[in-house]
């Protein structure tokens, strides 16, 4: 019998460890949160309805997150086709659409500042989100509670760039536009 020696166990072990570190940890630490209410941006922004982003997302809101609530939907909807839940139940949902870009509380971000003042298009940061046919499920870190997209490409595992909003994205864009910023402009 030939002994399994040399460097092969090392190599196999390192490969296993890297795999565990890269994918195993991510699989363990992130949990998928599925939107309680399915939603198609494409249906609402298409020609049939013709809504714009600002119809539901209040960009003049100083909050970082400008997700609508089910209550906002009732401005147009009397019922919700395809959703087998009572309206009262839907209205009681605290978080019908988990945000994949929810910033930490120590970060100040203003949509109004970017949309109203800088005149930026929503797609500049959010990509072609308006044509999405379904609401995304969101991977949330079980330990930190932060959505995975926050870390983007620099974090554990790749995230599609269009929906990432990490600090480097902010800094890059600010640099391109000649916006000089200091730490406290964004970090509380």
């Amino acid at each position, binding site marked *: *019998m030939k002994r399994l020696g040399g460097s092969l166990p090392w190599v196999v072990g390192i490969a296993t460890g890297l795999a*565990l570190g890269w994918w195993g940890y991510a699989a363990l630490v992130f949990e998928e949160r599925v939107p309680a209410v399915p939603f198609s941006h494409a249906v609402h922004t298409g020609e049939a309805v013709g809504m714009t982003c600002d119809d539901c997302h209040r960009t003049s809101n100083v909050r970082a997150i400008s997700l609508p609530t089910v209550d906002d939907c009732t401005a147009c909807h009397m019922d919700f086709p395809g959703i087998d839940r009572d309206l009262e139940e839907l209205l009681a949902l605290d978080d019908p659409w988990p945000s994949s870009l929810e910033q930490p509380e120590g970060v100040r971000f203003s949509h109004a500042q970017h949309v109203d003042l800088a005149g930026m298009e929503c797609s500049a940061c959010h990509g072609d989100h308006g044509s999405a046919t379904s609401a995304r499920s969101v991977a949330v870190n079980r330990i930190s509670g932060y959505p995975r997209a926050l870390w983007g490409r620099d974090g554990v595992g790749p995230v599609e760039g269009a929906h990432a909003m990490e600090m480097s994205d902010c800094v890059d864009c600010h640099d391109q536009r*000649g916006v000089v910023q*200091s730490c*406290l402009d964004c970090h509380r």
Partner: protein
Amino acid sequence: MNPDVTRRTVLKWMGGIAAGIVLSPAPYALVDDLTIATQTRGRSVPLPTGARGRVRTRCSACPRGCSIELHTVGGRPYLAVPATAGACSCALRPAVHHLASSPGRLDTARLHGRTTDSHEGLEVAASWLEDAVGKGASIGVIDLSGRPAIATPSASLVARVPGAVRIETRAHWLDDLAARVGLDPDLELSIDPRSVDDALWLWPGRSIGPARAIERGEDPRAVVDRLRAAGVRAVLLGEDGVGARPDDAVLSSLARIDVDLGAIGSGRPIPVRRRVAPPANVPTVALGDVDEGSFDLLVIDASRVAGAVPWRRMASLLRSGRGRSIVFAPTPGPAMRHGDLVLPASAPLEIEEGVGGERFGDAARIALSTPVLERPRSCVDLHDLTRRVDSRTPCGADALAAALVEGGYGRLRDPEDRTLRVAGLGAGTVATELRRGAVWEGEGAAAGPVLRPAPTAAVVDDESPRLVLEGAMVVAAGERVPDVLSKVAREQPLLPRGGRARAHPEDLADWGIVEGARCRLRTSAGRLDVVVFADAAVRRGHVLAGCGFGPESFGDPERAPEPTALEVLDLDPRSEAPPVIHALEVS
């Protein structure tokens, strides 16, 4: 052929796994996640618990008193959001509201390295100035406040000091911007965006970047074109809080200039409605041209600087200076240890040479300052200093009102009850120094503060006298505690239940208020229910009360949370934000 898996093989494999994991992001991500979790969820730091809420109040970083929205957890503030619809129109910087709660904020005067109070500091500063003037010494006044046109108390100061030289800095973007795009830097500029179609609209909060681009050497025209392409339509060059948000009152109180892009930098004359003249008798040199050590006394006014300060240059100047130095600053800078006297900054109101001109005369006595940056024993404002250097005749309420009206700052709402609305002044966080002895003497004596019984429903404590203090200028700020806004504030001291206010005992006696009385203070900025205490350190005519977002009762149910004592009563129905206050009642 079966491989011979030995213990050594397994150990190698396991070692490889360990090495692989170490080489992967997992351990660092785990540490990162755990760090975040311990900061936000852990038990090592007592985190706020309870219902989330929001309180609308006012920023106390400058006399503007912009609306801010406090996010609270369990009644404890943990977040302050400017309620300017996120527009970040703060002239001092978007994050200036942090300055007030900065742990590094300078709130105590220092003399030769030791802590002193502002009264002593002012006396020392005034005596140094007088001494230097008397000996014909050279005096340099370095103004880091920005443009010389508006609201620069040091300009007023230096104008009164013979032989003084005003030293301009390039620390402030407005100077550079105005100079490089061909505008007269001595103009106070303001554009009404509603009436100007084709103009450059440059909000102070967002214009820092373009200005820095110009500073870095970009062609100003290219910057202007880029701004224009980005939809920027008009110029609003204003600071000192007044220019922070262009509402009607601000626009009407500021000088205006019609600017069109063709005129900027073209050499063609720009129509000016009002010109604000800087002190004409003061020579001005650039900071870079200053001969180090050529001055016997340096006065550095960095009182309004919330951004970058060329402290390295300052330090060089201060180290090499032959004589003494006086520094006004909101936060300690690296140069300060070299300075002989460092005074906490205040933000005096724009009662200024050139703006109201000498017509204000003795109205310069009403020095408004930012009380959040002052404490009873560390209150400093340059107007006070200028008065000590060059005392003026006390004025009465009539002269004050007339001067303010004449200067376009106010209108007399009702001459009979002598209530004056003053535009452009600060808000509820503004302290006003109306020395009773000066203001109310003579004919104005009858128009002193009015004490009336409060409505029963408004009285919190039946055992206390029910008094409403109306009319008199009320300070609604102070008692700032460091790190208030820090979410993980561990070292915040607790404030006792209920708002407290302090006033001079003689004032209390005059007003008929006994110590410990529960009173309601009311200004146009809001309402404040407080328990009043006597404090001889408080200047006459002042009432110092906690307001804003003071920390309370964390983890202690016996201490009721009171995130803000200043209750703003009138909210704008559209924005649900407190209206911009541009008037304080003086009766």
